[in-house]
Structure formats: structure tokens, C-alpha cells
């Protein structure tokens, strides 16, 4: 028994608090206090360099009339829908493929995971080259396809200018986000390896094929992990910032097609005025949205997530 376990309850409490104090102080000073302060600032007109001017709920009211706010809401919601949906499906499929005992599987697993280790700014720079309309590898890969199609149909299709044409901005960003599903894949892979083999054997004896086994055994068994990954993906998607910021040189793309919520928040906090009070209101709305979506996901999950007891 250690000394901590033998002392009086108050001594043990003090000892426990002392041990967690670095985290506790960090939480209070660097998270809880700024969080409360940001709420206070959201009720003010505050430019960082001037003292906050109390304005009640004016910032929140202005959000409703702000077309850029609705534009970034829309962009972020569309991005979230596609990245969460496609990312989840792709990650589960990749994890299933990687959950096999074949030679060189370690190389494939590493290849899927490595992109998540690349700094976002570096990844964005690389993808800017890949998406280059004239010189990019993606369009170079599509070119033979368009050549065949154009020859057959007499059309003039060509690879898009991914980052210069507003309509192609979102697909480009979603494609890039799918390149970084490695973190979720690793978690799914661990979950897949935890599915008891006897359940597969029992279902095989019952005559289930591979597809039905995947649908009726694998997915239910890993559903808590899917829930976890979906919630993390929703939060990540609503906070997307670095990649579109770098790709659009901080402007938000043509016609604001790559202008996202966090970027708009940042612009208000440090550029437009600056309007730190307005940015704080945006941050609180963002928190409310993420909390609502997380709550909604939990509520929906009650029907679809199975916990082994």
C-alpha cells in the first residue's frame, strides 16, 4: 500500500488534488476561464485593442442577418455531410480489407495511416499541386478517360480546374479529406479484430454469406466504435480550417466556395475590424451546433448501436 492510501480522507483528497493539479490548473486557467471570458466577450463589441463595449445580444442578432454567416454554415454543413458519410464508409471498407492475413499487410496498413502523420499545411501544399488544372496528376490521370469519351461522343470534356472553379472546390476538399481517413481506419481495424470469431463461425453454420455476415455481425459488433468515430468526425468537420485556408491563400476560394465556419470566425477575430466579440458569438454558436449534432447522433444511436454486456 502506498502512503496516499493510508492517510485520512482529507489528506488523501489533498494528495489526489496535488497530483492532478497541473492538469486542473491548466484546465481552469487555459480552458474554463477563457471559455467563460469568451461568452462575456460575445455580449460585447470588442476589438482586442479597445475595451469591450457591452451590447447585449446584438452580436447573436447580427448573425441572423449576416449572409456570410449563412454561407459558411452551408459550406461547413455540406462538407461535414460528405466527409463524415463518405469518410465513415471508406474507413470501414479499408479496415475490412486490412483485416486480412495476407503477405505484406503491414505495408498497406502503414500506407493508409501515414497520411494522418503529415502536417496539414504540407498536405495542403501537396494537394494543391495534385489538383492543379493544367499540371496536376489528378487531371493527368483523367486525361486518357476524357480523350476516349471525347473521341466517342464528340464532346470537349476536360479535367476541372479544381481549386479555381467554385463548383469543384468542395469535391476537391472532400477527396483530400478522404485521403486522411487513416486514423479512423486504425480504430476500426482494432474493433474488427475484437469481433469474436465464434460469431462468424456460428453465422456461417447458419448459412450466411460474406455480405450478410458483414451486415448482421460485423457492423453491429463494431457499432460503438462507429459511433465514436462519427462523433469525432462531426467535430473535426465543423472545425475544418487549415487545409482550405492554405489552399485558398486565406481568401476562402472563388465565390467563397471554400470559406468555412472556423475561417470566418478567425477572420472576424483578427482581421475584420477586428471583431473579437462577434467571433466569440460565432464560437458559441459553433459549440452549440456541435453539441446538438453530438446529442442527435447519440439519440439516433440508441436504435443502431449495440453494446456487448
Amino acid at each position, binding site marked *: 500500500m502506498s502512503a496516499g492510501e493510508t492517510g485520512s480522507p482529507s489528506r488523501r483528497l489533498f494528495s489526489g488534488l496535488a497530483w492532478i493539479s497541473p492538469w486542473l490548473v491548466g484546465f481552469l486557467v487555459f480552458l474554463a476561464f477563457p471559455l467563460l471570458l469568451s461568452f462575456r466577450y460575445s455580449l460585447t*463589441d470588442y*476589438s*482586442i*485593442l*479597445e475595451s469591450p*463595449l457591452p451590447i447585449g445580444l446584438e452580436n447573436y442578432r447580427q448573425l441572423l442577418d449576416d449572409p456570410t454567416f449563412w454561407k459558411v454554415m452551408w459550406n461547413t454543413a455540406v462538407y461535414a455531410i460528405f466527409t463524415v458519410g463518405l469518410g465513415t464508409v471508406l474507413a470501414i471498407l479499408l479496415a475490412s480489407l486490412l483485416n486480412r492475413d495476407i503477405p505484406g499487410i503491414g505495408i498497406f496498413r502503414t500506407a493508409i495511416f501515414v497520411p494522418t502523420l503529415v502536417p496539414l499545411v504540407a498536405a495542403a501544399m501537396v494537394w*494543391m499541386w495534385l489538383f*492543379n*488544372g*493544367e*499540371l496536376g496528376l489528378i487531371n493527368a490521370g483523367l486525361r486518357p478517360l476524357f480523350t476516349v469519351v471525347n473521341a466517342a461522343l464528340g464532346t*470537349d470534356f*476536360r479535367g476541372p*480546374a479544381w*481549386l*479555381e*472553379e*467554385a463548383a469543384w472546390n468542395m469535391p476537391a476538399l472532400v477527396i483530400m479529406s478522404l485521403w486522411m481517413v487513416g486514423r479512423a481506419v486504425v480504430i476500426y481495424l482494432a474493433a474488427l479484430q475484437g469481433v469474436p470469431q465464434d460469431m462468424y463461425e456460428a453465422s456461417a453454420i447458419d448459412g450466411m454469406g460474406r455480405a450478410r455476415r458483414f451486415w448482421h455481425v460485423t457492423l453491429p459488433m463494431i457499432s460503438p466504435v462507429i459511433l465514436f468515430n462519427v462523433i469525432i468526425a462531426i467535430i473535426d468537420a465543423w472545425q475544418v480550417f487549415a487545409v482550405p485556408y492554405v489552399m485558398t*491563400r486565406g*481568401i*476562402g476560394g*472563388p*465565390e*467563397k466556395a471554400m*470559406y468555412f465556419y472556423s475561417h470566418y470566425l478567425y*477572420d472576424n477575430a*483578427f*482581421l*475584420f*475590424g*477586428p471583431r473579437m466579440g462577434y467571433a466569440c458569438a460565432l464560437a458559441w454558436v459553433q459549440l452549440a451546433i456541435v453539441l446538438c449534432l453530438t446529442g442527435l447522433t447519440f439519440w439516433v444511436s440508441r436504435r443502431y448501436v449495440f453494446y456487448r454486456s
Partner: protein
Amino acid sequence: MAGTPESGISKLDITRRAAVGALAAAGLGFALFGPRGRREPEGRVVLNYWEKWTGQEGDAMRAVVDEFNAGQDRIYVRYFSMSLIEQKAMISIAAGDPPDLVGLGSWDVPIFAETDALLPIGDRLAAAGLGPSHYAAPVRGLAGYRGQVWGVPNTCSTIALYLNRAILKEVGLDPNRAPRTIAELDEYNERMMKFGGGGRIERAGFLHREPGWWNWPFGFYFGGRLYDQDTDKAYAGMAENIRGYEWVQSYPEKYGPDRLTVFQSAFINMYNSEQQGFISGKLGMVMHGPFLVNVIRVFKPDLDYFAAPFPVEDSVYDADRPIGMLESDVLAIPRGTPHPDEAFEFLAYTQRRDVVERLAIAHCKPSPLASTSDTFAARHPNRSIEVHNRLAQSERAFLVPRTRIWPFYKREFDTEISTMWDLKAPAATVLPQIERRTQAELDRVAAKRAQREAIAADEGGDA
């Protein structure tokens, strides 16, 4: 983990000792052999100087700092090169822990000045013989705001039209004559356009969106303006500006926005590269600053170029009074610095003509001063530096609008330029919308300013 009873030492203890020992050894090694900062001579006042320049530009300023440090024994300037300097300066000043000197852009001055985040230094400058007459007339306004001087323009730059002589010759144009009017520029562009199979553009004369940094000044070349500081009014929608952007739209109308976009995507975002449009010969002319030559010297030193004032509409052409954008870097002393006198001493040092010219030459920029030395142009790497100097001295040089909401206003142009370029809406529709949104923001800021002033007056009255 249990240890053997004989030894009396658990494996955990051994692991702990090893970990602590390794950490201590690492710490000691770091302390003894780790990286060293520059040694600061004892007994000197140490100044922290934050600057935005990196690379070659940063090295040039660091050389000035080193020379200042070596030339006297009372002050030591520590030079910090950093990104996002406006934001860091803003936060440090608000927190009461600012640097002693900060290098801002001239467009940052209004927000810092309006909030008293900088020390006004007009009187000090005049006493040091660095009054308004020390600087080129248009440059004076760059560090000033609402009647006060908040810093010094330590480098400046103007925007001109750069031309590729080889392409001019190839298309049968005089290789020593630049277009002077917009109509001439269009003619030059037309002659330089080169198409490949399927109507694909292989070379263009001029593209408004290259390099894409200045999407807002096209109305100025038609006699327009964007803002009036006295009335606090935005003028994006004025007729001259609309004519300017209708001219911008005439290019995608003629050549097709898709074709131009695909063509430009080959060299977009490639400023510092041999694939850059002008350097690679894909563009015969480009609107650019003098610092373009630093890139030319690295990637294509044999490129035969020259620069001229950007062409203007016929009705506003005047050879003696060229129109061009002028901006500068501004060295300022933040409010709350503990060493304002020493900071000013360094600031004044940087304004000596020899120092200013050395920095201008290294940065490949014109001089912000009223006059240059006889050898300035000869020593300058930009063979067209006289053009930039002339623009910096021109009474029709135009500045970035002097308002704290300029980043908001500029963003409007940066995003709406694609709406106009893609021909999704005419300039006559887009520009008044920009004006309306910007004016609403100006009015909001003015209302808050008035509210703050009223509160301050009340508090003053109560006191």
C-alpha cells in the same frame, strides 16, 4: 511490480532511477551544449524588435540591426522575424507586454492608430530632422492617420506593368515602348495571345488575376477611388470603378472564362518559381511590384524585361503624373513599450538615407525618401527602378484606403473578383453590392466609435 526480497530494490525503482537519470543527463547536455541565443552585451538597454520579413528581406534588416548594435554601446536590438505580425502585435499590446518596435504594413496603421496602440512620433521625428520633407510627398501619408504620424515608412513599393521584351519583338511591337492607355494594353494583349489546338490558350498578353494579390485597384486606372476618409464613405460602386471592372470582364467575355481559368491554373500560386506566368513566358505582361525582379534574378536572370507605369484610361492619361498603387512597410513604436527613447533612436537610425537605400536595394524596392543618392539607381538590381521611384513621387499615386476595416473591404474584392471574372454577374451589379456591404460595416464601426467617445466623455465629466 514486486522486487526480489533479497535485493530490497524493486524493478520499478530501477526504472524510475534510470528515467530520472536519463532526463537529468539530457537536461544537463541541453544546458551545456544546447542552442545558444546571440550574446547580449551587459549594461545595454535591450530592445525587442518584431518584424514580418523572412528570407533575403529578413537578412537585410538583420544586417541593419547588427550594424546598429555594433555602432554604439548603449542599446542592443534583438531582432525577431515572425509571421502574422499584426495579430501578435495586437495581442501583445492589448496584454501590456508589447515589443519595443514593430514592423507593420501601411494598411495596418489605421486600426493601430485609431486604438492608440502606437506612440505618435511626429514631434520626435521633426526634432530629429526626419519631418515630412524627408519623405516623398505621397509616402508621407502611409505612416500617418488622422493628423498624427505613427511610424516611419522604412521601405515602400509601387505597382507597375512589367513587360517581356522578347515577346514584344516576337509579335512585332516596339520592344522599348510600353502601352500607355488601356486601349493600347488591349492591343498589346491581343497581339501576344497565342492559341494551340482546340483553341487552347498557350500564351496571354495580360491577365488581371495574375498574381492575384491586387484585385481592388482597377477602378483607379479609370479615375475611380474606393474610399473617402473625410466622409467615411465607400465608393466601390462609382461609375469609374464600374468602367474599370467592365474592362476586367472584357477579357473573359472575349476569351471565355473557362479557357482563361484553365490556362492560368498552370501557374497560379507559383510566384516564387520558374513556372510563374511572367518568368516562364506564358504571360507577356504582368502588373507587379519591383520585388518581382528578385524572383527573376533567381529563376531567369537572362529575362529581358522592363517596367512602365500601369496604363490608364485615355481620359485620365498624363505622362507627367502617372497613376499607381503605393504601399509601404511601417516601423512603429507600440504603446506601453518600456524604452520609447531608445526605440526611437533605433527607428531614427533606420531612416538615414544610406540605411534606407541599402534596405531598398536588398528588398528590390524604390526609396521612400524625397530624394535618392546619385548612385541609387545604378546600384539597384531592378533596371526599371526609376519607374517605381517616379510612381512613389507621383501626386496621383494611390494608397490602400485608410480605414480600419480595409481587410474586410479588400476581402470583398478578393472574393467577388471571381464572380465578375466568371461572368456570373456584371460589374455594375457586383460593385454597388460591395459598396453597400462595406458602407454598412463602416457605419457600424462609426456608431461604436461614437458610443465609445460618448462613454469616455461621460467618464471625463464624472471625474
